[in-house]
């Protein structure tokens, strides 16, 4: 396999980081500050996408920055899996940066400079993680992401947000300082390096199966951003953050960093062969199946819209892992493209939740009766994105579910097939009533807390509505034209 030495991955990191400093510098001039975010987002995406042809042609791009430890450089390596993650993070940042401006200004939030600066650094961390060439580089960015999103979660600085952010940081840093540290140390002890490799770093070592299984469990628990139950509780707690944060970070960047890291471990640290030898694939499949079903059941019981979406995220993240651990080509492709498909649809749903909050100050599902007439764009987008989440063709979610279903048949795992179908029914059960309520129920004023008496004032906010309509359209379009992510996924699977 051919590798190319290029500084481009570094450039893609440099932009959002520089943007963060410029944002701090421009704190007195909000227009300039917010334009910086937008411009940085576009440029970052362009640099990322400029690497796509190289990756799709089967080559990788590398750049070594420092020598850290014997066998462990601080190094970047762009491959297909990294491209999937970097593409969605940088592309969706463009929409989120417009949306955030609309949201933060209409909600008159405080500390906007801190917000936008932290946001930029989060993207820096996400792209850095995507392009990491080894476990060391990956966890550097993994931790940066945990820490820099902390101020975004406690943003409101109310008692509730301090509680939520505490849970957030305890779960994320707690698991990484214990299990992840142990996993990395053991891997380094066994192999003497930490590089990702296509065959799997731990393949062909003399370590005992028991030790390898312990390492695997430590990795799975340590990367708790993947929100596998019972290590998911930080995600609903993080919903105290302003909605743009929940949308881009807690539906895309942070949680995808989690599943991305888990996939790295499965594909490039253990390798599919070793996973199969140790029987870890099916064991994990059952754990994440439990998560898929339980999180959906939790989602059904949530009246708070954002919490319902959060539990839905927990469930959908496990789809990605499920696809990977079934270890058949189709299931792996399904899991990988689901990273992208879920990202576009879920960010749309969160954007909608924020739009409803900004326009009508409503946060609970039960308050949404009749809101579709006031916010037709928002609720139509919500409907389209729900279809994608449920997996209705031709929306994006259908593609991933299709591959997952074929994969579970290929793996001859009928229970997994049943899990997938049950989950689809549950998805429909917690998403469709919202659309139904919004369009077909009469507004019931006595439920509508803060918005009471201002029903006439509810209208779409353009800077909020435009991004969400676009992401909704895209989540249908990548269902019809799934080629980009599918070819990247195939590029990973054929190795």
């Amino acid at each position, binding site marked *: 396999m051919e590798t190319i030495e290029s500084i481009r991955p570094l450039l893609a990191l440099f932009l959002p980081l520089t943007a963060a400093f410029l944002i701090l510098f421009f704190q007195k001039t909000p227009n300039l500050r917010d334009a910086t975010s937008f411009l940085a987002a576009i440029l970052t995406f362009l640099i990322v996408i400029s690497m796509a042809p190289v990756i799709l042609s089967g080559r990788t791009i590398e750049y070594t*920055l*420092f*020598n*850290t*430890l*014997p066998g462990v450089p*601080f190094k970047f390596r762009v491959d297909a899996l990294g491209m999937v993650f970097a593409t969605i993070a940088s592309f969706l940042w463009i929409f989120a940066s417009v949306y955030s401006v609309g949201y933060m200004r209409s909600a008159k939030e405080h500390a906007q400079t801190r917000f936008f600066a932290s946001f930029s650094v989060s993207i820096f961390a996400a792209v850095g993680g995507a392009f990491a060439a080894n476990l*060391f580089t990956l*966890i*550097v960015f*993994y*931790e*940066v992401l945990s*820490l820099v999103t902390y101020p975004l979660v*406690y943003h409101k*600085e109310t008692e509730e947000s*301090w509680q939520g952010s*505490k849970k957030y*940081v305890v779960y994320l*840093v*707690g698991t990484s*300082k*214990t299990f992840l*540290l*142990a996993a*990395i*140390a*053991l891997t*380094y*002890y066994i192999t003497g390096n930490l590089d990702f490799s296509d065959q799997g770093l731990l393949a062909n070592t003399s370590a005992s199966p028991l030790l390898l299984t312990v390492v695997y469990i430590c990795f799975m628990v340590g990367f708790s951003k993947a929100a596998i139950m019972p290590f998911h509780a930080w995600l609903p707690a993080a919903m105290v953050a302003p909605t743009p944060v929940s949308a881009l970070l807690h539906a895309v960047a942070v949680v995808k960093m989690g599943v991305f890291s888990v996939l790295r471990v499965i594909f490039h640290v253990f390798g599919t062969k070793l996973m199969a030898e140790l029987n870890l694939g099916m064991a994990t499949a059952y754990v994440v199946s439990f998560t898929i079903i339980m999180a959906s059941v939790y989602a059904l019981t949530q009246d708070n819209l954002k919490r319902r979406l959060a539990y839905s995220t927990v469930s959908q993240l496990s789809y990605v892992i499920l696809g990977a651990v079934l270890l058949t080509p189709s299931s792996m492709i399904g899991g990988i493209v689901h990273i992208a498909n879920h990202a576009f649809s879920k960010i749309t749903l969160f954007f909608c939740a924020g739009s409803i909050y900004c326009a009508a100050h409503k946060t609970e599902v039960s308050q949404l009766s009749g809101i579709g007439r006031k916010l037709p764009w928002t609720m139509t987008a919500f409907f389209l994105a729900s279809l994608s989440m449920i997996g209705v063709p031709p929306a994006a979610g259908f593609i991933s579910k299709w591959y997952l279903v074929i994969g579970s048949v290929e793996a001859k795992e009928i229970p997994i097939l049943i899990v997938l179908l049950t989950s689809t029914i549950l998805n429909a059960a917690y998403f469709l009533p919202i659309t139904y309520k919004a369009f077909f129920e009469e507004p019931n004023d006595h439920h509508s807390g803060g918005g009471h008496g201002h029903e006439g004032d509810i209208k779409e906010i353009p800077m909020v509505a435009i991004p969400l309509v676009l992401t909704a359209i895209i989540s249908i379009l990548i269902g019809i034209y799934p080629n980009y992510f599918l070819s990247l996924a195939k590029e990973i699977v054929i190795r």
Partner: protein
Amino acid sequence: MIEAVHNSLGIPILSIVTFLPLAGAAVLLFVRNAGLVRWIALAVTVADFLVSIPILLNFDRTTYHMQFVEHYQWIPSWNITYFMGVDGISVLFVFLAALLGWICVVASWKAIEQKVKEFMISLLVMQTAMIGVFCALDFFLFYLFWEAMLIPMYLIIGVWGGKNRIYAAFKFFLYTLAGSIFMLIGIIVLYFAGGETFDIIALMQQKFSLPVQLWVFLAFFIAFAIKVPMFPFHTWLPDAHVEAPTAGSIILAGVLLKMGTYGLLRFPMAMFPYATSYYAVPIVVLSVIAIIYGGFLALAQTDIKKLIAYSSISHMGFVTLGLFVLNATGIEGGILQMLNHGITTGALFLCIGVIYERTHTRELAAYGGLAKAVPIYTTFLAIFVLSSLAIPGTNSFIGELLIITGAFGFNKVFAGLSIIGAMLGAVYLLGMYKKIALGEVSSHHIREAWDVDGREIAAMAVLALFVFWIGLNSAPFLDIMHVSVNHLIEQMNTVHGYYATIK
């Protein structure tokens, strides 16, 4: 007897770096103006730091032999020589001591208002003694430097300390003196057992009989374990830290604690390989206890300085753990972590001193909202807190990773237990940061606090530079010690083989 020693610079650079501060102290005797005293002290320590840089740059990484050696007859009748030299281990600590020297002066700039001249003289004498300890290759000379640290440190705590300073200074003095006596006994036994010589290099090549090994190891171990301090010899440390002025705390945490672990590495481990592996398990157990127990104690503290003091016990537990797992990964991790702990904890004490000057309290409960009042200060504090809890990308993570990796090679249970301490570190340090930096501004003292000035920024920025430098690009630092550590392990293995045959 002495192998291929050389001095690539051709000037007695180790004597210069050692005695420059002493010369500065002598000059200060004749200066009356307090402002001038500060500037001279700063100039001398900065110059000393600049002298230490070429030592590091010209250090030959390919040999374990002592470098920049100076060797003169001193007291022939006792076979005492003036013998200075550094290898890949001690050269790092000469650098560390020289780095923290000028940072101590910066930290004392406004904090010390009484008897400025006497304070700066103590500081400079202290620096000469500390650097001397790391360079000395003659036991007599080593002991001289070692004891020379006692008086200025006693004065720094006892004269310029807090309310309870006399008690703390006396406790520090007694503990250290007790340790010194054990060391003196050890040195005398070695002098006779090793053929009437104080030459450390010559003694390292001796093969001592088993009883000598086992007993003298213990004597040295107690002497140095008090200094580290290892559990259960740690109780003097929190008192000394809380009462000491900022510069005193920086010296204590940054350099003095490292003397304990440096001593362990240089004498008992290098001279008594058999005893080292004999006692390795109990010492590893003590280290793990220190890691966890120190962590829990830190968790319970309400005084910021005490919290960092107890965290030092936990972090130094990692260092001794790394050293006594007796493999290259662990020992290199331990040595790197000594350097890291010196930089990071030195920086944290500097931070505490800086904010104490503004608010005059160290109670956690009195703090809140520093991020809003003093943003630049809080950014530096965040960097050092993250470094102290060993977030990947900072210096301590590399050390911790190497130590735990090495520990996994020694015993998986002990390695697993030590990770509990790593987690506790995250809890108390992040808890402390949240309490003092975030939320609403808690008092008018904090609202009126002024942000860091140029001198303070310079000191913090240099330390922060090392935090990230070692954190992302630690290879150059590991390269320096690599050959020396490998030599130490080789020595242990061959000598170990020798004892296995005579048993």
